[in-house]
């Protein structure tokens, strides 16, 4: 069973003229994969991530998460799915300014009804995994951009989701910090996490074992390193 399966997903935005942001996209992602979705600006990457993450519903087609069709689910059911099975990382970090790093990470478990003690314990553990065990009590304002993104990644990971989705996680970071973040992703992936990273940066995408290229709302190419090695 695939962690994620998109079948003929089309997403159109109303308005004039109507925009077809995703055009008949089919995609499977298996557990343990680390995938980069690359493409130029406006190609539909963010739309794709929102649809995968059930933040948005496709106009047509089906999104299945761990074998469960999402099209028939209610809004509240989708929220439950996101609370347990999907982790998000955003370009602008989206941390809560009033909370410490640990408390921010703990919000990743807030909507699962887990007790505060347990949330705290797991948030400390997640922060250690992203190498921020020494920044537990810092507010986002006292952290560097790279550190903030690590906190956001820890928040996405803390609930042990089936899949972590990151939309331009390095978009606000310099190249050295970006590389560190990508290395962290590789490391977390080697520990078992299934991760999808969206980027418009081709060079960065080269570091990922699987690269899905999106162009004008269609999948232009889908390359796996193993396949590449095999072809050479």
């Amino acid at each position, binding site marked *: 069973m695939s962690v994620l399966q998109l079948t003929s997903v089309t997403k159109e935005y109303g308005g004039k003229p109507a925009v077809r942001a995703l055009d008949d996209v089919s995609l499977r992602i298996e557990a343990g994969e680390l995938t980069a979705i690359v493409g130029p600006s406006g190609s539909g990457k963010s739309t794709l991530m929102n649809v995968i993450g059930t*933040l*948005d519903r496709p106009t047509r087609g089906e999104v299945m998460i761990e074998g469960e069709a999402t099209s028939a689910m209610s*809004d509240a059911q989708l929220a*439950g799915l996101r609370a347990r099975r999907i982790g998000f990382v955003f370009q602008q970090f989206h941390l*809560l300014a009033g909370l410490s790093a640990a408390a921010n990470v703990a919000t990743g478990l807030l909507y*699962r*009804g887990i007790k*505060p003690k347990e949330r705290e314990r797991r948030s400390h553990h997640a922060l250690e995994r992203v190498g921020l065990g020494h920044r537990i009590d810092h507010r986002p304002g006292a952290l560097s951009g790279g550190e903030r993104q690590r906190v956001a990644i820890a928040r996405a990971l803390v609930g042990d989701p089936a899949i972590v989705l990151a939309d331009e996680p390095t978009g606000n970071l310099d190249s050295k910090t970006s590389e560190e973040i990508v290395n962290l992703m590789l490391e977390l992936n080697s520990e078992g996490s299934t991760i999808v990273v969206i980027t418009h940066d081709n060079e960065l995408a080269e570091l990922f074992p699987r690269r899905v290229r999106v162009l004008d709302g269609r999948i232009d190419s889908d390359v796996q390193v193993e396949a590449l090695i095999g072809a050479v």
Partner: protein
Amino acid sequence: MNRSRLRFADLIRTGLLGLTTRLGRTILTAGGIAIGIASMVSVLGISSSSTADVLSELDRLGTNLLAVEAGASFLDDDVRLPDTSSARIRRIPATENAAALTPVSVDIVKSDVMPSGRNGGVQVSATEAELLDTLAGTVADGRFLSTGDGQLPVVVLGSEAAERFGISSVKHRPAVQLGEHRFAVVGILEPLVLYPDIDRMALIGFDVAENLFDSKRAPGTVYLRTDPDYVEQVRNILARTVDPASPSSVSVTRPSEALSAKAEVNKSLTNLLLGLGAVALVVGGVGIANVMVISVLERRGEIGVRRALGATRRHIAAQFVVESAALALIGGTVGVGIGALVTIGYAKRQDWTVSVPLEGLALGVLAALVIGAVAGLYPAVRAARLDPAEAVRPA
């Protein structure tokens, strides 16, 4: 079991987080509600203290007191009731106590000191020993007139009259001059709230008045205390009892009605001020709604992330309602505190018994809570309706 779930304590904590993160705004917004609640609580408190004061006065004086006077006449300035009035009134079974009061035309001066002809506005009146009990008055010093005084030249001064003569105690046997005659001051009265006129009087007995000053026995006024259950009945027959020949020349009043009217005026003024307080409160509520709407716009990103982390629309709505209600609750609590302090301070200055109704305070806090929750409803719905995909998109 795969549903999102937000613990109640976490919901409260999340709502409060929005307030502590934006402290300055919280204080300003809560201030609006605080002013509204404070004004309502202090209006309520002050008016209930003042009404309590008037009512306790009423209670003390009783509502069963009637005053009988000769109606004004075109022909005669010095109108009097028939001589027999007091006696007739005492014969009414429901009468508990009665006393006549009659002006005596004689000048009064403080012995030796003040030149003759200047009595400082003090009126000499003849009355009976029952007057004090009938009016529920009390003696500040000395004693009141008694039936045993007979021809003794003794006088009791009203509180203001005593003050004008500079007499504050009867210890050193003070005396005043009534016309040619020297009278011993045997008592000084406490102020009589309902009868400021008597405060300015010097009271002597009927016998001595008749003998020394040729005063008539016909009373100007008769005060009577009735059985509380028969006040109206007695009132209705009084005129005919006193003067069967011409009952229309007798006027009967019930002095406590003036106080009841005062309490009524108090009440309507209170309602007016309360209305103003309510307007302030509504304005405060609108202020909260306003701030919350702005907050929702500003916090698109936060809302988006919470939805991504698994919050349902209800969770988002509840968060904003809690935030708004907590905001108003803070304002309401502060407002109730200020209102109570204002009331206590004001009542102390007025020498009233402080009456801050506890239910009123609780009601103030509750009102704030409800207003906050209602004010938060619209912004909360807007927040909940935000499309999560829209909300997480970079602005």
